[in-house]
């Protein structure tokens, strides 16, 4: 063994290297306050290791970035853990940067002859922040996409070179494939290489000048190995424990619904505004700061003031040489840190109190969970990318379309589809569970037909149908009521609602009876409505295929068509014929109203009376 070591040493000189690395003198012995630099080297190493492994599965393009990260997070063994460690180590690293800077500042380790090393440290800090910024975009989810847009737009307001600089960073005029390839090259290539070079120089200079021992020295000198190494190892382990805690937090704290590891939102979509866009928490103070600079003064908050502050920090080694300079430096650093903490807290507080923001966060969480379900469906992720899954999903688009186009008159379970109650009073039917048995039972209920949930808000409130329900049906005998029940089953079966498949199948004989009863003069429907017949004199809407996909699309396309309300149509626009909505969009709306989407069903219950 010794012979081998000697052989190796003669050829590499490793023993001396090891001695130099481990036997550095620590005046006054090992101390806990010296650990911060080592923890930063440790976190950087963790990022390099986890980053390399993530790199092996990541695909930077606008149709594959989210998809490959989804695959890492949800399909690959241990992927969530790897992503979680990488994500939260980045967070912890930013905290450690501040702690390291503070320790250096308090102990005066930035002063002559160590100015160069202080400046290199500041450059390293900028580079690490650059890693955070570029890494935030790479998953290409809504949050990263919109938050990073803010950052690159700020780049655009730099005087003179801003617009060109922005174009260079984006690889074009807008976000796309080349934004990702460039951000990825910066994140995994350029910035790490610069960091390694500068860090080498940083550590070399640190060794050259030695540690800045805390005075008074409370113990005899020690070597770096093993006492300080042990303290460093314990600190690194504590850092790792914190990272693992953050990664496993939903599991440790038993908070339901939380995904383990780093969050992955819905895929980026330039057409879907994202009101919950926020930078990562360690940039929140800058985000908050910008709120105080209205109009064109943005450049002050975004560039000039932060630039001046960084300038003063760069000058600290020189300021530190003056009488009281050191105190000024320490005081300024504490004030800045307090200011940053204050701004961060304000940003969080304002968001917490903003119902719109909270709603946006909830919607984002819904979309994220939904796209995951769709990606795991048998159809899977198409080559066009996962954003197309949500764009073609009735459950995602239906509520938004309803809120935009229908909710000024209609309601869905009392709200606008998205859970908000519109300011306009309800003046048309509540369409939750439209054409279901329960919904029809309400329509044909004398007590409910003229509420705003049915015809109450419309000009049909005094129409034939309402009169028929309130007079004729109200006077029904039990025998007629039983007939009506079967008619409801038959009419509802026309819709072929997914939620009623089994019931419709089970009660096929009753439905058949109901179909015949519909045409029976005794019940009276056929007097006004067409139903699998061609009665030229019918005055009410054609109920053939009532509530089916085709029927709904047709009535949304043009409710004033002779097949529906004709000239008696109330206020409803012809969404298709007037080209307010295109056919696929109307299809999404119809599918959503019918509960026709991939995955578990909401029960198609009628709105509360």
């Amino acid at each position, binding site marked *: 063994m010794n012979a081998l070591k000697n052989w190796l040493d003669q050829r590499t000189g490793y023993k001396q290297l090891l*001695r130099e690395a481990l036997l550095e003198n620590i005046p006054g012995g090992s101390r806990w306050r010296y650990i911060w630099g080592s923890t930063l080297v440790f976190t950087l*190493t963790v990022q390099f290791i986890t980053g390399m*492994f993530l790199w092996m599965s990541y695909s930077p393009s606008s149709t594959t970035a989210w998809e490959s990260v989804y695959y890492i997070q949800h399909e*690959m063994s*241990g*992927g969530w853990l*790897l992503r979680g*460690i990488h994500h939260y180590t980045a967070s912890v690293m930013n905290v450690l940067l501040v702690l390291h800077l503070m320790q250096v500042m308090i102990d005066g380790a930035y002063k002559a002859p160590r100015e160069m090393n202080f400046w290199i440290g500041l450059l390293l800090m900028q580079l690490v922040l650059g890693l955070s910024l570029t890494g935030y975009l790479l998953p290409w989810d809504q949050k990263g996409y919109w938050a990073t847009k803010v950052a690159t737009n700020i780049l655009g307001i730099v005087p003179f070179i801003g617009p060109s600089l922005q174009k260079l960073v984006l690889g074009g005029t807008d976000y796309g494939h080349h934004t990702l390839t460039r951000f990825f090259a910066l994140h995994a290539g350029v910035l790490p290489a610069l960091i390694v070079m500068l860090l080498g120089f940083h550590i070399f200079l640190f060794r050259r000048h030695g540690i800045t021992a805390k005075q008074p020295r409370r113990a005899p000198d020690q070597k770096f190995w*093993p006492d300080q190494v042990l303290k460093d190892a314990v600190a690194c382990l504590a850092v790792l424990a914190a990272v693992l805690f953050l990664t496993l937090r939903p599991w440790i704290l038993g908070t339901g619904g939380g995904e383990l590891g780093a969050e992955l939102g819905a895929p980026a979509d330039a057409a879907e505004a994202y009101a919950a866009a926020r930078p990562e928490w360690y940039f929140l103070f800058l985000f908050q700061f910008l709120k105080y600079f209205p109009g064109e003064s943005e450049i002050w908050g975004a560039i000039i003031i932060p630039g001046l502050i960084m300038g003063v920090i760069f000058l600290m080694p020189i300021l530190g040489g003056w009488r009281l300079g050191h105190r000024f430096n320490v005081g300024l650093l504490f004030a800045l840190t307090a200011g940053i903490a204050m701004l961060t807290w304000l940003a969080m507080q304002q968001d917490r109190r903003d119902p719109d923001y909270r709603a946006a966060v909830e919607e984002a969480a819904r979309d994220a969970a939904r796209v995951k379900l769709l990606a795991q469906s048998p159809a*899977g992720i198409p080559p066009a990318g996962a954003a197309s899954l949500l764009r073609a999903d009735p459950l995602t688009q239906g509520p938004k379309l309803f809120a935009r186009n229908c909710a000024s008159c209609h309601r869905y379970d009392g709200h606008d589809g998205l859970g908000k109650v519109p300011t306009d009073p309800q003046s048309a039917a509540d369409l939750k569970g439209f054409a279901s048995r329960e919904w029809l039972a309400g329509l044909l209920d004398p007590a409910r037909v003229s509420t705003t949930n049915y015809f109450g808000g419309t000009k049909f409130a005094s129409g034939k149908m309402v009169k028929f329900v309130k007079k004729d049906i109200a006077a029904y005998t039990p025998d007629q009521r039983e007939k009506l029940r079967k008619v409801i089953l038959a009419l509802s079966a026309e819709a072929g609602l997914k939620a009623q498949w089994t019931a419709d199948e089970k009660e096929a004989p009753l439905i058949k009876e109901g179909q015949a009863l519909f045409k029976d003069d005794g019940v009276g429907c056929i007097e006004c409505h067409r139903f699998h017949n061609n009665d030229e004199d019918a005055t009410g809407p054609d109920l053939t295929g009532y509530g089916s996909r085709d029927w709904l699309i047709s009535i949304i396309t043009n409710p004033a068509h002779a097949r529906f309300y004709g000239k008696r149509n109330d206020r409803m626009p012809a969404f298709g014929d007037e080209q307010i909505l295109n056919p696929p969009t109307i299809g999404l709306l119809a599918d959503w109203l019918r509960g026709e989407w991939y995955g578990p069903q909401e029960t198609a219950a009628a709105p509360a009376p």
Partner: protein
Amino acid sequence: MEQDELPPQPDRRGFLTRFFSVVLGAVAGLVPVGAGLAVFLDPLRRHAGGGDFIRVASVNALPDDGTPRKFPVITNLVDAWNKLPNVPVGAVYLRRIGGDKVQAFTVVCPHAGCPVDYKPALNSYLCPCHNSTFAMDGKVNNPKSPSARGLDELEVEIRDGKEIWIKFQNFRAGPAQKIPLA
């Protein structure tokens, strides 16, 4: 570590310090490596799909004289996160062997995986990479051929009298035995 090179620290506390320095440091370093390795090794727990019968062509498309013709194999492909319906995943040579009986070979050379060409002038398949040649029935027909086995034959089913369905599989390149990729 090179304890013998360091100043003597014979006491128990010194030993424990050194011991825990190394152990704790190793633990801190191994966790991210372990998470990374789990993801890195993920492909090992995935297995080749395939082995399903796929409709390739109609018997009518094959010449009566037994000359092989090449057809693409089109099926659904799962490529990591993407599911791609009806895309080409490979190609096969089909030829009649008497009446409506059909023989199928994958175009992949069993030597190193290059796609072989059918050369009518030579009446054999030639691999353009290392010059293996195969007879019409797929057997190696030149002893100097680097390939250790003949072309990989695929199972064929004729359905409805005319439809050619093949069990499409890939095999390990190299060995003399035909071993499906799992």
